[in-house]
């Protein structure tokens, strides 16, 4: 499981780990909005990172939980996964 993380998977993780419901299309349109604008705090993002690490069996860089926007986050996470593949 080292495929790229899709916007759908991020939307699903935002719901399960942080309780924030957002449709993948909406997430895509708001790619550069801050996670805080979605209602996700630092612990919520930390939970998303932890869940991704468990699913993909690979550690994420420390910067992952400091990403401000979905775009930054997906870029960093997918770069990491591609590098590990």
């Amino acid at each position: 499981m080292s495929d790229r993380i899709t916007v759908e998977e991020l939307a699903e993780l935002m719901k399960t780990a942080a309780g924030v419901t957002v449709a993948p299309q909406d997430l895509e349109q708001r790619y550069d909005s801050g996670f805080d604008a979605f209602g996700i705090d630092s612990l919520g993002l930390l939970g998303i990172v932890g869940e991704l690490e468990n699913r993909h069996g690979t550690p994420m860089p420390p910067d992952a939980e400091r990403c401000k926007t979905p775009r930054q986050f997906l870029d960093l996470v997918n770069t990491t996964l591609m590098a590990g593949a």
Partner: protein
Amino acid sequence: MSAPHVRRAGVTGIGVVAPNGTSTDTFWKATQAGVSVLDRVTREGCEHLPMRVAGEVRSFEPAAAIEERLLVQTDRFSHFAMAAADLALQDARLGQSDLGGSPFAAGVVTAAGSGGGEFGQRELQRLWGKGSRFVGPYQSIAWFYAASTGQISIRRGFKGPCSVVAADEAGGLDALAHAARTVGRGTDVMVAGSTEAPLAPYSGVCQLGYEELSTAEDPVRAYRPFTADACGFVPAEGGAMLVVEEVGSARERGVPVRAVLAGHAATFTGASRWEESREGLVHAIRGALGEARCAPEEIDVVFADALGVPAADRAEALAIADVFGAHGRRVPVTAPKTGVGRGYCAAPVLDTAAAVFAMEHGLIPPTPNVFDICHDLDLVTVRARAAELRTVLVLSRGLMGSNSALVLRHGAGDASW
């Protein structure tokens, strides 16, 4: 407390999430009717425990009351607290815009006995079952006994003094007193109270060590304080939050002051040392009466702690006699908690809520399931008793030795003292 410059604290809002009602209307209707909702424990993972009977909150839908974002990061005890705080603030007609533009004018104080046991158990099972990487980050805050104060404060934007009282069951009354003192020091509004969620497997097992816990099977017989059949207490979940507000601030807003928190005192006499709790209660009651400048004969009804353990019941009955006189004026005593169970710190807060309704309706609610009193007490049983209630005393004791007493005065006409 009658000097004109003294800032007095009154109750302007009540929010209840209790086994016998998740609105103040249903709670008071069931309480004054003496309905008992004690029943077999049905919460998942608890059915096999020797704690057979409890007061469960069955008509509460967390998802209907709390945002999903907050549900995933909090335990059931905080769900109850946030919901009860919303109800209390709504009852007090207090929105963000009523704080005079200052979020520092409002604070929060809760009391907690066990914190978020259910959330904590789930995460610790992940820790030992799957490994540390599977523990969710919200474990860092959700189990903590301060979680409810923090979540209410953040959610409602209250930046005034916030605190948590960890003082045993009696801490529920201490939290209300702490709110009153905070109001006295200059904060206009405090959201104060307690909610608990002890009906979960880990929390349940913790309680099995209490020799005072009732293990009776029959809900009707499981919790019968002040009788020869007393066999311990029955636990409960849920609780209440009150809006404690400066009397002048309430008047400015045009909101009725429903009761004044007039006096409080607390003592400590040691875990399960029930005989000694007599003296502890006497000192607490006298301290509370003193602060309220209230003579014993002014007390119109006592909401008893009513532990349901013979030695503790005897100590409480004797303490009431010590203060009010064994053969003199007989003050009515009631313990509506026999119909819902003891929600630890939440129990005396529910009693305080019931006391405010009792004063408003001129009705002393009865003590469900209790007949044949074996102590020298005028315990109100079977049905509510009509009475003009101006001043009420609420008592609470904790299993670890805390004793607390709170005097409330009826809100109307409170300018006279």
